[in-house]
């Protein structure tokens, strides 16, 4: 409410500035190149054009099974760690978050620290993946990739880094194949699902996932996005776009904003059977921490995780609340468990300025002390 004449005038002038930003923003939009989020596969590299400067880190396809691919990133440091690291991302959204753009790239930072980085790209699930189960992903492709890397490097065990749902998959893998994992790094990984700290966990208890999978087959990525938007409905649907206006006059900032938007809405559909299993067994049954989770006829015992563990989680995470990730420390059998936390949200862990500077060096330092 406005009670002073000069304030009244001021507010109108302020609005004019807002509208001018919008206008400038449209001019900038016209001059922005194609917006990519860490994808440069279709672009032939010259190393100097705007696309190259903004695109992701160079990588090579080294192994493939259908639409699932294993990449190895090109080394950037002189001295490279002799034990390679495999990164397992979630099926939800795309791994490009880890290599969004040169100044927001956890992968690039790890490479600069001398890590030898491999990464799994799950691809976009389609109708043919409707019956893929967690066993297919974990006992199947993750195990194949680990074996491939072990063979290539003539090693018994490699370092494993799992992100979010990919972290849960990696946890299950590390519990089933501890002899193949030298060091384990779960990042923002849900382990204990019996919490009321996240709306997702509260909501999951009341909906019938069988009906959802039977109705859709693969669950549309859009639907998942809408559920995530509901976690902060007004911030993510309204406020974010109001905040966008002042940055629209800066074409670089605008491009960064749109790149992030591109990533957010680049949501593959979720393979029906895997989602059914993930929600029923973990979100609703919380079987992992209860020691009741079975994969391929084998019981998954978190106590089997005896290798060193670096548990990384975000203190302001609304998707994977800290209490859910923190449970890892309590349940694994390893005597060498460390926690690393940041005062950021789920996505901030990968793109915020603070984590860009310190996260990769801390991971590398922890690994190097355990080789």
């Amino acid at each position, binding site marked *: 409410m406005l*009670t002073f004449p000069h304030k009244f005038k001021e507010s109108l002038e302020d609005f004019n500035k807002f509208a001018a930003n919008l206008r400038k923003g*449209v001019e900038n939009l016209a001059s922005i190149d194609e917006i990519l989020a860490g994808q440069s596969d279709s672009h032939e590299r010259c190393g100097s054009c705007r696309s190259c400067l903004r695109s992701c880190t160079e990588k090579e396809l080294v192994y493939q099974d259908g639409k699932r691919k294993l990449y190895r990133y090109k080394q950037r440091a002189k001295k490279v760690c002799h034990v390679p690291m495999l990164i397992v991302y979630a099926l939800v959204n795309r791994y490009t978050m880890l290599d969004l753009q040169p100044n927001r790239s956890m992968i690039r930072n790890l490479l600069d620290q001398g890590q030898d980085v491999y990464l799994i790209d799950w691809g976009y699930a389609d109708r043919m993946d409707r019956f893929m189960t967690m066993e297919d992903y974990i006992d199947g492709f993750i195990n194949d990739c680990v074996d491939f890397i072990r063979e290539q490097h003539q090693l018994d065990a490699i370092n494993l880094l799992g992100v979010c749902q990919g972290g849960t998959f990696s946890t299950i893998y590390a519990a089933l194949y501890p002899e193949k994992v030298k060091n384990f790094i779960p990042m923002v990984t849900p382990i204990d699902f019996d919490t009321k700290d996240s709306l997702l966990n509260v909501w999951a208890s009341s909906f019938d996932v069988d009906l959802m999978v039977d109705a859709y087959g693969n669950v549309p990525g859009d639907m998942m996005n809408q559920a995530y938007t509901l976690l*902060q409905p*007004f911030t993510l649907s309204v406020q974010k776009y109001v905040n966008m206006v002042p940055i629209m006059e800066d074409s670089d900032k605008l491009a960064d904003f*749109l790149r992030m938007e591109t990533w957010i809405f680049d949501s593959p559909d979720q393979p029906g059977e895997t989602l059914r299993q993930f929600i029923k067994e973990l979100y609703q049954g919380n079987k992992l921490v209860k020691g009741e989770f079975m994969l391929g006829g084998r019981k998954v015992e978190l106590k089997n995780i005896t290798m060193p563990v670096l548990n990384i989680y975000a203190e302001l995470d609304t998707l994977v609340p800290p209490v859910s990730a923190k449970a890892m420390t309590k349940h694994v059998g390893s005597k060498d468990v460390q926690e690393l936390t940041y005062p950021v949200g789920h996505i901030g862990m990968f793109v915020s300025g603070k984590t860009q500077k310190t996260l990769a060096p801390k991971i590398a330092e922890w690994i190097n002390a355990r080789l």
Partner: protein
Amino acid sequence: MQDFFKQQADWLKTWQENQEKLTKQYAELSQEFVENISGKKKEPDFFEGWFKSQSGLEEQFREFTSRMNEMINNTLGGKIHPDVLKFVNISFFEEFYKNWLSNLELPGGMKNPLGMDGGWQQATSFLRSFLEKDHPFFSTFSSSTITDQMSRVFGMLQGALGQEESAFSNIVNGYQDFFSKIFESTTAQGTEKLAEGFEKWTKEMEKHLSAPKLGINRELSHDMSQAMVMSQNFIQTYIKMARLVEATSRKAGIRFQTKLSESALKNKPVNKFSDICALWAVENETVFLEVMGTQEFAKLQGDFVNAGHQLKIQWNKLAEKALEPTPIALKRDLDLAIAEIHQMKRDMKTFQRELRAKENEARMAREAQTAAEEEANKAKAAVKAAEAAAQDEAKKAKAAVNAAETAAKDEAKKARAAEAAVEKLAERAKTDTKTVKAATGASTKTKSKNV
């Protein structure tokens, strides 16, 4: 694309100039209004100009947002995913703007007459207009998604039924009409009234479906009847959700108004457009999240989502029924085929893994065999070498023995010869002694004679 933007540049320039002109005019009129408010009566022309400038501003911005959206769509089309474009939708700024303008309290504490329609207090209206613009806010099951799906399914059903079953077709049409109308309603109360009508109509139609006319597929009638029951269930859960959203919006609206008043009373009016948007979002979110974090909300949302999925499964079933007489592959058949292919792939993978393990075992066995053979060969060669060395040694020993024997013999011979020589020498010595003795005797005799 650059050409497209150039065409818009003039319009944007004019718009901004007009915007500034109108804003200035509006501010001046408001100032004048306040200065003269104590006692002086304003002329009707003044009010006319004052209202005009405000509605002019509103009109300006409405056009601006619609053209801006068009430009964003044109400039970003092909650059980012269409789903993202759906979100980069600035038309809701218009809602904010309209409410912001109408909520401006004039200097001196007089309420802006344009704010009399409620403005921000009508948070529910804002929410509804938001939904209508196909924004994903609370729209997992937005009316457009549901009615689109329904149209597709019933389109197939109508096509399959043809002319013969017009009675049934009428039911399908009626069902679709009712259903769509219910989701077009913008208030929970309106939805409720429409739902009552739908329920009555459903009961009536049930009579036809439970005893269908000759020629109408009984199984299909049964499925259709089930779809109607499920629809009622879905609509009831939708109404409950709508009521909760409305009540929460109302509560959030009051909270927002209170915060605005508090700020004004503290002489810190929220006068910037972006600040007022931020305050609105924060206050709404606080109230909504409080509600959305409860088990009651989870249950309500669960019931709503589950009822929606049940209905969708039933519609899928109806669509399958419609496709049965056609040569088009059914979803369930495709699913079966995909499941089989998937199992075959899985078996193949298991087989490949086993094969790889066996190959590894074989390779390891081969390597072990080669190593063992190498060791055996080495051992053989060592034995041979040892044998040869032993033979050499034996030969050498033999030769040494022979040489030693020969040497011994020689030595014996030499010894014997020496013995013989000694004996000979002894003999000679004897002889010599005798000779000496004889010689000595002769000499003594001679000596004595001389003496």
